[in-house]
């Protein structure tokens, strides 16, 4: 997924959908578009918390 970095291509920040024959490498090298991050934030690890309120007592 590409994002527009120059007004010469369109609205800055909008997604860029390359047309037929468009040279993506040249646009990237020229700084006209960038690669948007597709990695999602890692989920936090599930931790089990002991919600048991019972207390053990020894006689």
């Amino acid at each position: 997924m590409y994002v527009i970095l120059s007004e010469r291509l369109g609205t800055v920040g909008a997604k860029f959908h390359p047309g037929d024959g468009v040279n993506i490498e040249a646009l990237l090298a020229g700084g006209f578009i960038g690669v948007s991050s597709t990695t999602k934030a890692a989920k936090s690890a599930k931790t089990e918390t002991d919600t048991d309120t019972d207390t053990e007592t020894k006689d």
Partner: protein
Amino acid sequence: MATSTLLSNPHVLINAVNMSDQCTAANFSIDYAQLTATAFGDVDNKYVKGLGDHSLTLSFYGSFAASETWATLNTLVGTTTTVIVSPEAPATPGTYSATNPGMTLTGTFLASLPVNFALGELNSMDVVFTGGVYSLDVS
């Protein structure tokens, strides 16, 4: 008799980049090889259309600023791209019409990038895109 007079103000897209404000001249040439099809018995030459060999010659002011002429063209040298020239800017980007057609070369090749410097003049870059598939976008 001319029915309309238009100030030449074409719209130029190079690799999807709008370079109209740096462009000073555009010459879109649609050419086909002329193959002889004349045979015995004919009294006049006949021709049929051969391979297309189209080109687009453009003149730009030579700005080296970010996102300007040099940044657009330098990375295209020795590669192929798509170029579109229309008589005027489309009302909606990418939407052309019969009266404002998008003359398109897809997969056209840029072989060189001459940069012209002259005393007392704005520097310029004149490029020629050659080959590629010609189409006329009127959608």
